[in-house]
């Protein structure tokens, strides 16, 4: 079980490498470097040092008493919002940028939707002194103007993507086009557990720090494992980072919450696992939101970070083997989650994890009173204040 993915990067039928020939050499190089450098003790020590003293790990596992009372069961929040730069994304970017530096790459590129991954990449590049270019869809540049400015302050160049739907998927297209052109000196830092092999593995491994810490913390606090782990799923990196270290704990149930946008009965959502069909996109095989002819659907969500028509292949695999359950909640429930957590706990969540909170509020009757639930609070909400103001203000 633990040996997945296989040599070709497959989790059962999901994953693989569907990229232009030019990139194969870069993926091979990355895979070998990750095996060799990523596995070595010095690299791990260096990364752990950065995670602890620079990014502020371990992040707290917080017993949200007021929210627990409101929901009717015990809930802990894994406070990724307290990590440096305000989201879990830093776990992955520190790992990948450090790896790229050891590989001798001089230039880093990344895509970003909400801007969190872009900011986290720009941060790691500032620290480790590498040139950084971030691709961002024009639509998202408007939605997340503050993060654009942040990236620039950190010394990154932000390239506005005006093709296609001008969101995350188009930013990835453009990043891949850049990579295929500058492959010899450039490392592409993918921000989620998507893309061609070995990216889904590398990002999962770097994000697994979330679940590893959580496991230790909950055992110390409650002397038992949780009944449920819940996280929002766009590409799926915070969810997989939390789930993966609990994979063999069969009694711990995984819940992934996707962006339901205006509703699953409309075309305006980003609920890939709930409504997608198997296909190939951005270099990997997984569930994809697409039409009958195989054209990729434009997606919609109030949260830019979940606005993506694909999902990590390992999530597709978890769905197939029923290891995790995936649901979607609409914008309205996400905003409700945002509001409730702010009021009850004084914590403003990002709109992405607000979906997971919204799900718990919506479905709270379905959980037993003695249930122990851990929610990945993947990021803080400052970046979303303008959007929330528009809806609730």
């Amino acid at each position, binding site marked *: 079980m633990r040996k997945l993915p296989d040599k070709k990067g497959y989790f059962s039928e999901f994953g693989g490498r569907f990229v232009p020939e030019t990139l194969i050499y870069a993926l091979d190089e990355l895979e070998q470097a990750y095996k060799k450098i990523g596995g070595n003790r010095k690299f791990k020590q260096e990364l752990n040092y950065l995670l602890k003293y620079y990014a502020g790990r371990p992040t707290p596992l917080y017993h949200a008493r007021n929210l627990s009372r409101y929901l009717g069961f015990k809930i802990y929040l894994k406070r990724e919002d307290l990590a440096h730069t305000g989201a879990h994304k830093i776990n992955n970017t520190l790992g990948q940028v450090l790896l790229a530096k050891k590989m001798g790459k001089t230039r880093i590129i990344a895509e970003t939707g909400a801007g969190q991954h872009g900011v986290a990449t720009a941060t790691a590049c500032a620290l480790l002194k590498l040139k950084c270019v971030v691709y961002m869809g024009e639509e998202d540049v408007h939605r997340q103007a503050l993060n654009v400015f942040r990236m620039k302050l950190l010394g990154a160049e932000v390239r506005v993507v005006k093709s296609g739907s001008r969101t995350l998927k188009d930013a990835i297209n453009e990043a891949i086009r850049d990579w295929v*052109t500058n492959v010899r000196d450039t490392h592409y830092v993918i921000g989620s557990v998507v893309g061609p092999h070995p990216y889904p593995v590398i990002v999962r491994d770097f994000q697994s720090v979330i679940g590893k810490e959580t496991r230790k913390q909950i055992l110390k606090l409650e002397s038992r494992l949780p009944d449920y782990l819940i996280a929002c799923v766009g590409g799926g990196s915070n969810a997989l980072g939390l789930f993966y270290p609990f994979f063999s704990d069969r009694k711990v149930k995984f819940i992934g919450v996707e962006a339901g946008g205006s509703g699953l009965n409309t075309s305006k959502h980003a609920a890939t696992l709930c409504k997608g069909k198997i296909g190939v996109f951005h270099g990997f095989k997984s569930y994809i939101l697409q039409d009958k002819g*195989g054209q990729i659907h434009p997606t919609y969500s109030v949260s830019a970070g979940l606005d993506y028509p694909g999902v990590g292949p390992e999530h597709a695999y978890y769905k197939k083997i029923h290891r995790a359950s995936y649901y979607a909640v609409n914008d309205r429930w996400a905003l409700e989650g945002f509001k409730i957590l702010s009021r009850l706990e004084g914590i403003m969540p990002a709109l992405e994890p607000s979906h997971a909170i919204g799900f718990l509020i919506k479905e709270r009757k379905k959980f037993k009173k003695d249930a122990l639930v851990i929610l990945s609070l993947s990021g803080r909400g400052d970046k979303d204040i303008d959007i929330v103001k528009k809806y609730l203000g």
Partner: protein
Amino acid sequence: MGGLQRYFQDIIFKRRKILLPYITLGDPDFDSCLKIARIVAEAGADALEIGIPFSDPLADGPTIQKAVNRALKNNVSLETGFEFLKRFSLIPVVFMSYFNPLLAYGVDRFFRRAKRLNLAGVVIPDLPFEEAKEVSILGRRNDIAVPLFISPTTSLQRAKQINRMSEGFIYYISVTGVTGARKKFPPQLIYNLKQIRKIVTRPLCLGFGISSPFQIKEIKNYVDGVIVGSAVVKKIESNINRKTRMLEEIFKFINSLRRALDG
């Protein structure tokens, strides 16, 4: 050896070079696209590569992206591609399609249908060697060539394996990058071609970045043929409201490439 490769070998045997222009299906509209295809054939192309529009063409540069957007507005799909095959038989046709539209249609179903309509081959830019086995087998079974790519970053060891699995021809990519007309080739191209020549036994066609007869003269002795895409599509783009002139310019351009290859 399948039909397309035999056809190309025949051209090589006659000491000629293969000219394989690319246009996007349904660009600027279906009827014009058919007319362009006929002009391309008359001007001296040996075969035609026709791109099936895909919403996210990540191996393509701005010129072909724009063409794809024009075509998608006309609701062009694989089905339109089959319609095209019914109406065009002057020269062999090779589809260029990203993998997802083929998957959505059903790969097996696609090959069976395409065989009845005499499709000569299908090039899939996001299907590298490791993932291509099944598709190659289906291609061989239906006598539809599935040419694979070799790029400047492909090791010689790997190129050998690709050459073995590829059918029809080898699509050699001149530069690391996306499609798009470029004025000059990278300096190491001729060295690369000489190296790859020692390994490749299939017809060797060079693509990406070819935009002029001048460039063709530079490299024609090192290859069996050339693929010209964005430079043709640009003629469509810049004459979008002047159809007669569009056809004239395309004829002149293709013909100049033909002469450069023959001269």
